[in-house]
């Protein structure tokens, strides 16, 4: 019998340029949760024991390391914890291996990311607790702001490109100082 070895999407060492730092992040399991029409109450009931609520667009609900992040109409990603049984209230899929996560932090993080993401990511416009779907260059991403900085979810197959593009932005922002 083979021993299947799990491999992370990225094994890069953390990167620091100027006032910005980038790390590969390990998020644990990711499960997509998609409400069926009219199932808001039923889903809320399942989420309640977890200390979570279904997030409004562009936001997230968090309880300790577990967060439920809005990712689309009637759809959210449960990150960092095992999914409960939703029965007929919501469809779930395992998305764990499909996404790679990058943490981008430091005083220049927003400035760096605004080279690649066409949104106002500055603290007053994009405070902790915000979570949006947005393009990073030509790549589809989930952009989450928490106290520690930004968490970027990107398709696993493209994460090397995302790393390279953010690194390039980090370098050019740092070179201006």
């Amino acid at each position, binding site marked *: 019998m083979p021993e299947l070895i799990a491999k992370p999407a990225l094994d890069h060492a953390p990167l620091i340029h100027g006032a910005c730092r980038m790390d590969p992040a390990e998020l644990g399991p990711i499960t997509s949760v998609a409400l069926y029409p009219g199932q808001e109450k039923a889903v809320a009931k399942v989420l309640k024991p977890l200390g979570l609520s279904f997030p409004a*667009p*562009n936001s997230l609900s968090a309880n300790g390391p577990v967060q439920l992040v809005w990712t*689309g*109409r009637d759809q959210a990603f449960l990150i960092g914890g095992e999914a409960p049984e939703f029965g007929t209230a919501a469809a779930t899929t395992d998305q764990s291996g499909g996404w790679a996560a990058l943490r981008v932090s430091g005083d220049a993080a927003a400035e760096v990311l605004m080279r690649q993401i*066409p*949104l106002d990511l500055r603290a007053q416009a994009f405070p902790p607790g915000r979570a*949006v*779907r*947005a*393009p990073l260059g030509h790549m*589809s991403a989930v952009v989450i702001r928490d106290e520690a900085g930004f968490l970027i979810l990107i398709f696993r197959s493209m994460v090397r490109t995302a790393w390279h593009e953010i690194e390039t932005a980090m370098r050019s922002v740092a070179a201006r100082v």
Partner: protein
Amino acid sequence: MRIPCPLCGPRDRREFTYYGSDDYLNRPSPDAGEAAWDDHLHLRANPAGETHDLWYHEAGCAQWLRVHRNTVSHEIYGAELVAGRKGDAQ
């Protein structure tokens, strides 16, 4: 140009894929006849002024939007989710 996505907020038009007139929302029944189908797929008004057309928020929430805008002034009056319309039973 910025399109006000009802879910994601105002976003640059590069995040969207254009499709065409909102005529596409009204699919004829299979037996509606050639003229109705031809009209549905091919015949379009080309208004100078207000128009409703369909945009897909591909780089965002993956929703189809019905955008109300003006082809002359380029003003965008608003956008609604196609999925949020009333009476969309097939």
